[in-house]
């Protein structure tokens, strides 16, 4: 009960701060818009090529905006040394980790929804055939990304070259999630049932479970001074 309350208060704090400042969300919205231009320039107007590359492009957009968003996840904790306060909180710190993961997950899902809409409008692509399937795939992929991303963002928050180090650490570790998510998204967009990509969904679920478990068990060691 206390654990859930502590997780919730961290999530509440992060969402409330973001709702007031809109710093991350505004920036990410424009970032997503710019990505759209980039993809268009890179691929040209050929619809065939675009459709073939769509799942990869979508996830590239998710990952890039996720990197930008997650990199800012612990900025507020550094501003007035709030980090110290979190560290001195008595008891298990994993509640803080889960609250942070939840906040980052929600933020990323919001940005992803925006990107999906932008794709649908500007590239004239029908994403609405199987919304539930798409949500399942994107949810599983994003959770894995947020779980490791939050852990690594906390880790690199103290390092001087964090803007470089964060993606360098995160991206290779996220290869399984990226591959699984892209392949499953591709299948769903082609109208295949989820059972056709059962092995990928299993892999994503396994990755999510492993990452979250490691995060919960090791976050104390990262928060420590």
């Amino acid at each position, binding site marked *: 009960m206390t654990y859930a309350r502590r997780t919730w208060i961290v999530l509440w704090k992060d969402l409330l701060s973001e709702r007031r400042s809109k710093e991350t969300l505004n920036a990410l919205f424009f970032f997503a818009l710019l990505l759209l231009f980039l993809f268009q320039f890179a691929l040209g107007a050929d619809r065939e090529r675009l459709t073939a590359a769509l799942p990869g492009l979508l996830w590239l957009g998710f990952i890039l905006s996720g990197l930008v968003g997650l990199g800012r996840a612990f900025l507020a904790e550094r501003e007035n040394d709030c980090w110290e306060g979190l560290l001195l909180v008595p008891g298990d710190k994993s509640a803080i980790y889960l609250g942070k993961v939840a906040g980052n997950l929600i933020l990323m899902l919001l940005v992803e929804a925006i990107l999906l809409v932008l794709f649908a409008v500007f590239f004239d692509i029908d994403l609405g055939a199987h919304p539930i399937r798409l949500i399942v795939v994107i949810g599983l992929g994003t959770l894995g990304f947020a779980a*490791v991303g939050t*852990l*690594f963002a906390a*880790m*690199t928050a*103290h*390092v*001087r*070259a964090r803007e470089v*180090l964060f993606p*360098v*650490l995160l991206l*290779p*570790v996220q*290869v*399984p999630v990226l*591959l*699984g998510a892209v*392949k499953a998204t591709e299948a769903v967009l082609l109208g295949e049932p989820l059972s056709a990509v059962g*092995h*990928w969904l299993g*892999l994503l679920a*396994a*990755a999510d479970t*492993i*990452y979250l478990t*490691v995060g919960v068990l*090791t976050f104390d*060691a*990262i928060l*420590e001074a």
Partner: protein
Amino acid sequence: MTSRERALGWLAGLGLTAGLVMAFGVAPREATQGNVQRIMYLHVPAILVAYLAFGVVLVASVIYLWGRAAGADRLAHASAEVGVVFTGINIATGAIWGKPTWGTWWTWDARLTSVSIMFVIYLGYLLLRAMIEDRERAARFAAVLGIVAALDIPLVHFSVYWWRTLHQPPTLLRPGSPPMDPTFVLALMVNLAAFMLLYGYFTAKRVRLLRQEEEVFA
């Protein structure tokens, strides 16, 4: 250098010599690829020992987070370095082997790809260590990364394998390989043993150096 280290070094040297003799003198010439195939005796043991090294990183990282023993941290650090070197050897020999047999230095083959991803992950591990000045903090963060990285390896392998084989997951067992000449196997085993000794020697040496570094700066 301690006497145990020196003994390990000599044993590794002997093992490598024996391995060379086995690879070039005893093992028969492979029928289709010819002498080129002999690079396998370097290529395969290197990656097997790299896996061993990263396994040691995992165990040492868990032990470090548990009891904060500085020795476990040094072992993880040293083992990761040696593991990265051996992974590098595996990739380099793979490229050299690939040129005459496949006609290209590099191909996005499943095994090659997943091994290179592993290589990059552990390079990141060493980079993280190098970028944190506070020794104790570097140890803690590296331990967390060492655990994530090791648990990620099977995920990387499965995902890359499935990604290359277009659709349904293949059977986990490799599709039936033809029975090998026993001397092939023997030569491989001798080389594997030699590489393990070499790993032990390098790691022991690095652990001692790391300890001495700490003593100097303590």
